[in-house]
């Protein structure tokens, strides 16, 4: 068995786990759309949707991209990209005063 074949014999999620994760992703998407249409959640819609979105992101990264079963260095590479991206978003929004605009009156 060559090196690559050995690498791929490592533990990955089972097919039933993949289906379960897909079901959870579909349910979360339904919840997101429901939250969008519920009027009394308007004031807290952003934090709720960001948490749901982050959950979906994490599920795809952990199970479909196999980060849960793979080498930690790969998680570190993705995390570095995400931290820099988050810093860019925050810095630009602060610079343009967009955070002030988004705050509830």
């Amino acid at each position, binding site marked *: 068995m060559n090196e*690559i074949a050995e690498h791929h014999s490592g533990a990955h999620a089972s097919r039933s786990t993949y289906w379960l994760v897909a079901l959870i992703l579909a349910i979360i998407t339904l919840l997101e759309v429901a939250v969008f249409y519920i009027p009394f959640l308007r004031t807290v819609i952003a934090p709720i949707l960001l948490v749901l979105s982050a959950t979906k992101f994490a599920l795809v990264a952990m199970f479909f991209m196999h980060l849960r079963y793979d080498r930690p260095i*790969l998680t570190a590479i*993705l995390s570095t990209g995400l931290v820099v991206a988050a810093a*860019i978003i925050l810095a*630009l929004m602060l610079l343009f005063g967009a955070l002030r605009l988004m705050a509830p009156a």
Partner: protein
Amino acid sequence: MSTHATTFGVPHRKMAMWVFIGSECMFFGSLIATYLSYKGKSVVGPTPAEILNIPLTSVSTFVLLMSSLAMVLALDAVQRDDTRQAKIWIGGVIVLGGIFLAGQVYEFSHFYHEGLTLQQNLFGSTFFVLTGFHGAHVTVGVIWMATLLVMAFRGRLGPERSLDVEVAGLYWHFVDVVWIVIFTVVYLIQ
């Protein structure tokens, strides 16, 4: 070279794809930052609330999520040397990716007829650049999947080529997670 692992014990191509994904996070982060920075600053319409079609985009989002499921099942089939299942699931990724792209083409043309263009206002500029780049990534992914499907039909997609499918899958899943963020930030948080 591609069959050797790096000092981290990860094959070179897989490591390269992860580094690429890390850089893509920054790329899309910049586009999302630009969209958010100019949000609500358009002096003329149409505005997001007036024009965005949430039911259509929700279906597109569901389709893209299910394409990620098809992608992992394709990888699983290749690793098990089940060529028939691999063809089915890779074909599924192509079909679902195609449906997503068709939805985006419909959305873009609808917006154009409603008066939202790249030059119309800040929302139009940032929206089309962000979602357009994402759509271009999906298009590249669909072409990549089509090449894998051709390989499968030629009998050249056995377990020994599973790294090829895994690397393609990583790209596809990344395109999916980017859309998860775009769907929330652009469409749902208006």
